């Protein structure tokens, strides 16, 4: 339970097994860069407009979230109850910020 012994444990383990090259993280990094680049291109490239542009960016954003969760946040490895609660809470807050912001901002602020 105490993480001091955990750390010592991992230490001993890593001394036995050579640490392998972090392929997962490198792939995740490259994918993140590609997805970000693609989103930027959509914004600046002027090839897409209106609803298509927004949908494409939204999809790219969701893919980005998946990359982060699967390749960096160990989502696929399962976990304790507290992990699941934290992830649910994360989704809840994300939903709140995005949805409520859209809701709040739809009052015709723009100078026409």
């Amino acid at each position, binding site marked *: 339970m105490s*993480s*001091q012994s955990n750390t010592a444990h991992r230490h001993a383990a890593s001394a036995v097994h050579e640490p392998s090259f972090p392929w997962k993280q490198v792939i995740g990094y490259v994918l993140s860069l590609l997805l970000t680049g693609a989103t930027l291109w959509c914004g600046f490239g002027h090839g897409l407009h209106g609803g298509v542009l927004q949908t494409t960016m939204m999809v790219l954003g969701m893919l980005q979230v998946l990359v982060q969760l699967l390749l960096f946040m160990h989502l696929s490895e399962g976990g304790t109850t507290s992990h699941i609660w934290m992830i649910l809470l994360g989704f809840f807050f994300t939903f709140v910020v995005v949805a409520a912001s859209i809701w709040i901002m739809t009052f015709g602020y723009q100078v026409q």
Partner: protein
Amino acid sequence: MSGLNAFLSHFFVTGDPLIYASDVLIVLVSLGIIVTLTYLKKWKWLWREWLTTVDHKRIAIMYLIAAILMLFRGGADAELLRTQLAVPNNSFLTAEHYDQIFTTHGTIMILFMAMPMMFALFNAAVPLQIGARDVAFPYLNAISFWLFFFGCLLFNLSFVIGGSPDGGWTSYPPLTELGFSPGPGENYYILGILISGLGSTATGINFMATILKMRAPGMTLMKLPLFCWSVLSSSIIILFAFPALTVALALLLLDRTMGTDFFTILHGGNPMQFVNLFWVWGHPEVYIVVLPAFGVYSEVVSTFSRKTVFGYKSMVFSLLAITVIGYLTWAHHFFTMGAGASVNTFFAISTMCVGIPTGVKMFNWLFTMFRGRIQFKLPMLWTLAFIPAFAIAGATGIMLAAAPADYQFHNSQFLVAHFHMALIGGVVFGYVAGMYYWWPKLFGFSLDERLGRWAFWLWQIGFYGCFGPQFALGFMGMTRRMYTYPANMGWNTLNLVSTCGAYLMGVAFLFIGAQIVYSILKGKRDVTGDPWDGRTLEWSIPSPPPLYNFAVIPTVQARDEWWRRKQSGEAAQRAAFPAEASLQPIHMPRNSSIPFLVGLSFFVGGFGTVFHWYGMSIVGGVGILLCLLARSLQENVDYYVPVDEIKRTEIHLREGVTHGLHV
């Protein structure tokens, strides 16, 4: 030569005697520090023991010192503001200088006083309360501190170099866009907060991991001390709220430096989005700072009533309820900005809902005191003082949360009085209580009670004297951020009273300063490690604790584990040496200079960006990358404290304890 002169007069703030006086003081204090350190040959000690430390207890002390200094600076700002408002038609400050001072007062008090004071308490208490040897990521903890420190330094430089921001602590565009705030002040604001904000986010992650992963064996979540629960809640909010601020400020910075138009209406941008994003962080920020204070109240009430806290589970549940509901309330900060009735209604109701779990906690504290044997020591006094102050803050908060009424109160002095009641009465009282409570644990001596009582009563009188009249002034139509007012409004007496109250709080602060100095010299030394007859694990070890905190990691059986041991007689063994067979070499992280250098690189890069000296920004950026690289390639990051050394340390510490027991 004239070119240089022009540059210098642009670079340094000139023309104000107050600023010249500050310049002189800054130079004198800096020289004093340098001369003293050199004379006492303490440079190496400072670097080895403090600037490169990864020990959570030392980081707590550094946060605490920074927070007290910033309380002084933010307090001095407040006194200047109140001096200007003491009488009508005053010309003590110019309008622009007044704007700069209220901007820095707000920013410093929230981000550079409350936050570090809170992190000081996190670092001081959490690992000790959960029976751990350090936080989950000690090296990251040091990085967090140095990012805070250098962000704070950058922000504080603004008033003598380049000029302070004057767009309010909320820094709304379009006022803060380049066209309306061309000077470097706004850049200082953005970069100072961006840099320290990164550190805060990392601290949130660090303490979440610490509390979830580092608990001593047997300490289930339902045995976690309430302060740790409050830190966990606060960390969750930090993790989800701070990115919004980072994004909002980064976009504003891009607008100002790269010519983007996120918040400029004429090019399709939308300043309201900044307001929205700012408060997505800004309102949860209130809970970030107040929840740990609630945690402190729970610990203090329980210890000084000599009872276990009433309704533990409902306390935990209400903390978590505030965490979630508190996230749904931010739009109440801009009820008057044009959103529809449905939006305003939703956020009015959600805001009022937060009052319910807060009320639950309040009653639990009262019931804990009920039939307890209350000891009126300093931490308990501040806790008791919190209750009426926060009741007023809560009642006026509900008034403000009612959207139609808010159209009357918004931006008035009523609002100013409300949030000072909440933030001073709720947060500062809690942190001061926490400071008094854990001070002997951190330093090994108590703060003097007599001077502390003077400070307490002066503060209380000053506090109600200062903010009480402002409620009335708000109803009488005085808005906030007015730098002066005509004599025939009927506001004169109330403003004068308010200013006198502010001065009293200033005097109280001086008493706290005197108390600290006096106690360093003559304070009661804590030789028992348990001066308050405490209940949780931090009181089971000597004070100040050894580097590794616990020679043997405790096994927990009860919520108030240390109290249980004292009742069952197990605690008496504490004075004895820990069983030798149970000692094992302790795995500890090594000190590192990289966190300091990371902070320094951010500072250099930030300073360059403030003045658009992009060469300097690049130098700072390269510095950051080099630090990351150096750390990645570092092999020798930890070591083991050998059993012999633990034995020696423990014997040395026990001598003090046995001595204390026989006195």
